[in-house]
């Protein structure tokens, strides 16, 4: 650019460099975090069981211990404690980095990293679990066809105490049981290789079950605080004659994880490079669970969370879970992102042009139009 312009050459240099160092990251941040609200939700399928037939989109899971199917086969849930590390007792137990994961009907897993398994095996006590971390694996293989060419921008997980179907519920105004729970959450998206085991006929679950996860690539897509309301009004038992209306609440755990458009794109790219979503999974870690209203951590007795073991019950103690993916389609959801990218492209091209001697003739031409 000549020195006849409004800005001196030094100022032009400074503006161009500032555009790259400040304008570009700022614009990228604006674009990547925009329009992340989902326009559609996809629920992970749940296996029908005789227990959850009132809400068949709730998946039955086990808190701890061993669960057997009707054929007498053990579908994981077993754990061992080798002094320094956990190890699976059963070959169908999925393992991640040497840590035993608990198999819950085939497609989702939970581990209580801070729970002492020796305590669990002799009668559980939630006080041994502490305030975290609690890790959950959410496999995307079950809904892989629905996720292709989509961008995941939200993950919702609802958990419900199993007792709702077994007949036990609580007064909704019980302040000890029903309070907001705060904590920190980390969500990772992983791609790699899953080993599936194929069940024999008549065995529950009837679909192939991942039992090992070999991670090749992972990105952190969320890290931050959350608040969960730990109560839910159980409408399904409204007609029950065995309890009063005051006893229609059950403890729940509900968490919604937002994922930026940028991370959604990266997830899609990672999945696409690795057999789409068939060999991918999310890992959610919850930590620092606390009840602010009661000024106490969850390791203290009296606080109820669905995935905690029930006092005095060892082993097989299930709860319900519902997983929902919020998605935007590439065609509609990312329009504003694309528009922002287009504007940024034009801006960058303008800086490129302004950095050359062609700028002055170009501006002359523009003025003469």
């Amino acid at each position: 650019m000549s020195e006849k312009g409004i800005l001196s050459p030094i100022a032009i240099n400074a503006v161009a460099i500032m555009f790259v160092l400040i304008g570009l990251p700022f614009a990228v941040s604006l674009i990547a975090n925009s329009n992340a609200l989902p326009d559609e939700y996809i629920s992970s399928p749940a296996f029908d069981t005789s227990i959850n037939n009132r809400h068949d989109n709730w998946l039955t899971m086990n808190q701890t211990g061993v669960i057997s199917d009707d054929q007498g086969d053990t579908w994981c849930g077993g754990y061992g404690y080798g002094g320094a590390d956990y190890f699976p007792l059963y070959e169908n137990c999925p393992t991640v980095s040497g840590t035993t994961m608990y198999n819950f009907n085939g497609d989702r897993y939970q581990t209580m990293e801070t729970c002492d398994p020796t305590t669990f095996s002799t009668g559980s006590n939630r006080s041994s679990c502490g305030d975290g971390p609690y890790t959950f694996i959410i496999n995307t293989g079950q809904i892989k066809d629905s996720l292709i060419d989509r961008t995941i921008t939200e993950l919702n997980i609802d958990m419900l105490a199993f007792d709702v179907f077994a007949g036990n519920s609580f007064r909704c105004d019980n302040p000890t049981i029903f309070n907001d729970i705060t904590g920190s959450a980390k969500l990772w998206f992983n791609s790699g290789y899953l080993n599936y085991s194929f069940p024999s006929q008549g065995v529950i679950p009837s679909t192939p079950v991942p039992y090992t996860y070999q991670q090749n690539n992972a990105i952190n897509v969320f890290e931050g605080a959350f608040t969960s309301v730990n109560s839910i009004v159980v409408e399904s038992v409204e007609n029950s004659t065995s309890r009063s209306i005051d006893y229609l609440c059950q403890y729940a755990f509900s968490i919604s994880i937002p994922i930026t458009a940028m991370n959604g794109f990266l997830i899609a790219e990672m999945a696409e490079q690795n057999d789409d979503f068939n060999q991918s999974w999310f890992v959610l870690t919850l930590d620092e669970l606390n009840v602010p209203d009661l000024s106490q951590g969850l390791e203290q007795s009296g606080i109820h969370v669905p995935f905690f073991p029930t006092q005095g019950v060892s082993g097989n103690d299930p709860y319900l879970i519902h997983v929902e993916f919020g998605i935007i389609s590439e065609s509609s959801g990312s329009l504003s992102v694309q528009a922002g990218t287009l504007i940024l492209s034009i801006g960058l091209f303008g800086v490129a042009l302004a950095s050359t001697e062609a700028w002055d003739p170009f501006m002359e031409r523009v003025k003469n139009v």
Partner: protein
Amino acid sequence: MFEINILIQLLAAFVGVGVVGQGFKSGMLSSGYSRAFAGGSVSLVSANFLGGYAGVESFLRVCYSGGLGFPGQLLIISLGTLILAWGYNLYTFRRVIV
């Protein structure tokens, strides 16, 4: 696959050269050592900032892979044009921006 990180490194290098050039013209960074140190530092910090902290590298990777359609591809072309222009300027005029 083309390493999109190269674009970031080149951009950061040109930013470093540009900063040092302007510093030299305005009377600062008179010694060769100070120019080398300043240029290297600015380039390193810029590359790390753009690539890691600011997430520009991730965004460019998505653009390059087609995740953002035509606008994303256009952004890569614009960035390439900027780098080519600065490289040409440096080679021809010994300055990043003329």
